[in-house]
């Protein structure tokens, strides 16, 4: 009751909430309804026949059972490698003085500005030479490139945001540079880095263009399978069920990352 009274005091908030809810969640609700329907004919507002008939059919497909763990594994590996190569770079950008640091940092924006599809053919040619096409390594490399911007910019801003004198104070009491990084700097940038990691994971999980051109035929990820099932499948339910399934990792991320995301650190990564 008191909660309701509180809500009543914030009509603008309620308006924004309802409008956003309709716009953001509305499309998702239709997917959920489709996933649990057996038949849904216009003009019925709700499915004309409910049921899980298509769930078992979807998950009987061998390709899906293969692709799901592969996709999770790939995203995990890409995220890890991305962290391993990008975090030191981010630290260098934030803390070391070197000629051209600005140029190098900003150059990563270029990775996001050039339309990808044409590039992938050229990359495929290079990878064919290196025997990387249709291998996990090849897909990891191509997907890694897409993660660079977020994984460098966001942590760079986060490292910059750590007061330098906190590090100096630790050096001053005798900690080695490594220990300072590990025990003083890192704990303070954890929220921003975890936000970057999650964006990377989710982005990689859903990446399709690179996965098609470099991964096929040997490496088939979930979204690549989904492309055909969602847009080329007569039975709407397949796509709905897959959408819902694919969406679980995202939802978990959102649940865990909300705090990290809403912090200043993430926006700082874009230079705010």
């Amino acid at each position, binding site marked *: 009751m008191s909660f309701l009274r509180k809500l009543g005091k914030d009509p603008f908030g309620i308006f924004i909430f309802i409008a956003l809810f309709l716009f953001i969640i509305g499309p998702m609700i239709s997917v959920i309804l489709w996933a649990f329907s057996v*038949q849904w*004919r*216009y*003009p019925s507002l709700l499915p004309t026949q409910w049921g899980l008939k298509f769930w078992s059919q979807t998950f009987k497909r061998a*390709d899906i059972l293969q692709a799901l763990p592969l996709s999770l*594994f790939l995203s*995990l*590996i890409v995220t890890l490698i991305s962290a391993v190569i990008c975090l030191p770079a981010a630290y260098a950008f934030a803390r070391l003085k070197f000629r051209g640091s600005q140029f190098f940092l900003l150059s990563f924006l270029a990775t996001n500005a050039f339309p990808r*599809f044409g590039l*992938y*053919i050229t990359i*495929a*040619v290079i990878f*064919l*030479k290196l*025997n990387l*096409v*249709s*291998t*996990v390594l090849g897909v990891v490399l191509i997907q890694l490139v897409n993660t660079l911007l977020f994984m460098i910019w966001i942590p760079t801003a986060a490292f910059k945001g750590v007061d330098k004198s906190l590090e100096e104070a630790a050096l001053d009491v005798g900690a080695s540079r490594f220990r300072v990084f590990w025990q003083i700097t890192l704990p303070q940038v954890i929220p921003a880095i975890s936000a970057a990691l999650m964006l990377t994971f989710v982005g990689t999980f859903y990446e*399709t*263009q690179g996965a*098609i*051109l470099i991964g*096929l*035929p*040997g*490496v*088939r990820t979930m979204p*690549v*399978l989904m*492309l*055909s*099932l*969602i*847009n*080329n*499948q*007569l*039975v*709407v339910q397949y796509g709905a069920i897959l959408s819902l399934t694919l969406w679980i990792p995202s939802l978990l991320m959102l649940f865990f990352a909300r705090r990290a995301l809403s912090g200043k650190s993430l926006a700082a990564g874009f230079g705010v």
Partner: protein
Amino acid sequence: MIRICLSLVVVFIVSTTFSQETIDLYNGSDTNISDWYSNSIIPMFQAAVPECKVNQVITGGGAGGNDPIVDRAYAAFKTGDDPKADYFEQFDPFRPVGAMDEGFWVEFSTDNVPNYASIVDAAKETPFNLPYRGSQVLIAYDKTKVNEAEVPHTWDDLVTWIKANPGEFIYGRPDRGGSGRNFVVRAVHEANGRDPSLFTVDNFDTALAAERFAGAWKILNDLAPYLYDNASYPAGNTPTLQLLAQGAVSMIPAWSDQAIQAISLGVLPESTGLVQLEDLPLVGGYATSTIPTNAANLDCSLKLANFVLSPEVQASVVEEIGGFPAINWDLLPAELQERFADVITNQVPDFPGGDWNSAMNDSWYENVAPNVNRNE
């Protein structure tokens, strides 16, 4: 965790290293076809030719179907690398530009594919592709909304019906799935005296094309205001079919096989009717497979090509996917010939691939599609 990752990596390395016996088949068709491969053709082939395995990769519905992979294979052809692609279930060998002349595609003959001899002449367009199943585009309609008397039997009937029922008809973009394309082709035929023989693989000419298309664009632009939602052309066979399934429109051009499957799956209601135009059928066509000459497993690929032309598979084309065989009906089991006596035709009218096709698609985008804007 690390151990699991490592073992997964090892599994992938191993599986890619020891795959010489496996041909990579790329299937860019709709799901009824790729399901048919998974469930029928591939198990049958692997049983018949035990030394060859098939790895089917489904690319349909993505950005361009088999196109990106063909491009990759063509690039590999130029640099002499393994294309990681052995067989394209459906592709037009006139693409990529120049590839055919450079020897990128396998030239089929009875020498490398003994069953090539069985293919009906009407299906043969070029020796660089392998026609192996035919289907036709029909008019699918909702019986509850279209009166028995109004069901169109000629192009003129169809136009009359479309104009009398604004917003109830739609066809898909010609470059996205054949149902839309073949409706556009039918308009081109209509504008050129209903003579499909005017268009052959070799007689393309830019000026001639402009002249022949002009009439068709007039017909289609004339129709545009009466199409679904001021001519909102969906991007593919399936999205078009789904508009009918959702009751958004009452009539569409559709592939016979896909429509029949949709009805049996319950996606389209039982009350869906199918009809073919009688003055000149909507063209259908043969799905044509291609094999790149640099395929790592060329032998197995050719064996598969031969296998899909066997009476066994061709019978399955008729029975399982409701298509037309690419070989002479005489070669099929007698029981089947009897059962399908009504619909047997050795000729499905076609429209040539290559230059004519891409010129038509591009020209459609430039001349017909902008209607969307004009009417808004």
